[in-house]
């Protein structure tokens, strides 16, 4: 019996990661999920957040933005819309994106009807969240 997890992270554009790891933490839509070998089969939607994996006592983080994770036996497949490792993130750009999103939320011109306004706010809120996740991941490096 293997005591390691086969972790795969793929996006529509490329394969981000393919590694044997000891444990994985996933940003599930209903809260964080810790996955260890011999986990029960699971299918979950992922939120924007930090996915981290542990290998030989070393923890690495990946920023994922929405997707699915399937756990089956000892394989963990993450199908993300977007996934970036710490090394790939441009910290300055993420910071700029945060300030911009904040500005838009605080002092941006509101849309005329409430529905458009709601979607506008959602858009900037998710942008804000994404930039914060990116920064956290980049700094953990």
């Amino acid at each position, binding site marked *: 019996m293997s005591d390691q997890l086969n972790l795969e992270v793929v996006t529509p*554009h490329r394969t981000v990661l393919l590694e044997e790891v000891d444990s994985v933490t996933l940003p599930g839509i209903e809260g964080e999920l810790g996955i260890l070998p011999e986990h029960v089969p699971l299918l979950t*939607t992922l939120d924007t957040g930090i996915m981290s994996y542990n290998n030989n006592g070393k923890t690495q983080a990946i920023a994922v933005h929405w997707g699915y994770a*399937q756990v089956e036996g000892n394989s963990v*497949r993450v199908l993300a819309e977007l996934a970036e490792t710490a090394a790939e993130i441009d910290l300055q750009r993420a910071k700029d994106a945060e300030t911009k999103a904040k500005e838009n939320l605080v002092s941006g011109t509101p849309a005329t009807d409430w529905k458009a306004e709601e979607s506008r706010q959602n858009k900037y809120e998710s942008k804000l969240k994404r930039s914060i996740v990116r920064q956290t991941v980049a700094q953990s490096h």
Partner: protein
Amino acid sequence: MASLKDIRKRIDSVKRTQKTTSAMKMVSAAKLRRSEDNIREATPYAVKLKSVVSSLSTRFDGVEQDTGFGRLFRSSGGKRTGVILVTSDRGLCGGFNASLSKALARQLNEEGVECAEMVILGRKGNDFYKRTNHTILENHTGTHPKEQLGLVRDIVSEFTKRFEANELDQVILAYNHFVSVMTQEPVIEQLLPIKAPEAESADEREIIFEPSPEDILETLLKKYIQNQVYVSWLDTIAGEHAARMTSMDAATKNAGEMIDKLQLHYNRSRQAAITSELIEIISGAESI
């Protein structure tokens, strides 16, 4: 008979054409390599997504067809059809676009669909279908799938919405599958109602869903359709470059043959002209 000058002109013009075709071949070869890479990078995601969907396929049997994700399986056998046609923007690639457009037209004809509603990617499909009875809802040109995931999402979600609202009875996808550099084959697939891929190995263990299975399956299936369209687009682009490369290679070869023939013709005519001139001079000298 053409004069020497005419033949020389002709040779020059064929040579210029040959330069163009061989340059186009080279450009296509480079682009083909890049688009093959794109496919290779997109494949793992598509394969995994498919296997996730297929591992859940036992859940789709006998699902209620009027609620939740079951609506994506509703088959009414009606004729209202939506089509997503993926072609290229530019020609000079042999029968690449024409054979796909014709194959689709034949299929629609066989099914008795008189007025399909189409979304066409690429200019060539639009050129073909604008003269037919089918309605072209949208035509997108000058786009590349890698920057256009959002566009794919919009097209698919629009069709899905209308399918769920019972405004369409089926949605089909037509594209060119890139088999190899030499062959591309037109593929016509049914997107909706969904045909779930068969499970390879049925996992009988209970799966935990988070959130509920209904929520997950609905978005997952939609994502699956989107990905199918996206991958088929990449496939078509690679096929386009491959088709252009082979047809430009053939054109370059033909131009070479033509130049050889013309050159021979030119040399012979030149020789004949010299000979007749010599005869004239000699007979002129004799008569003195």
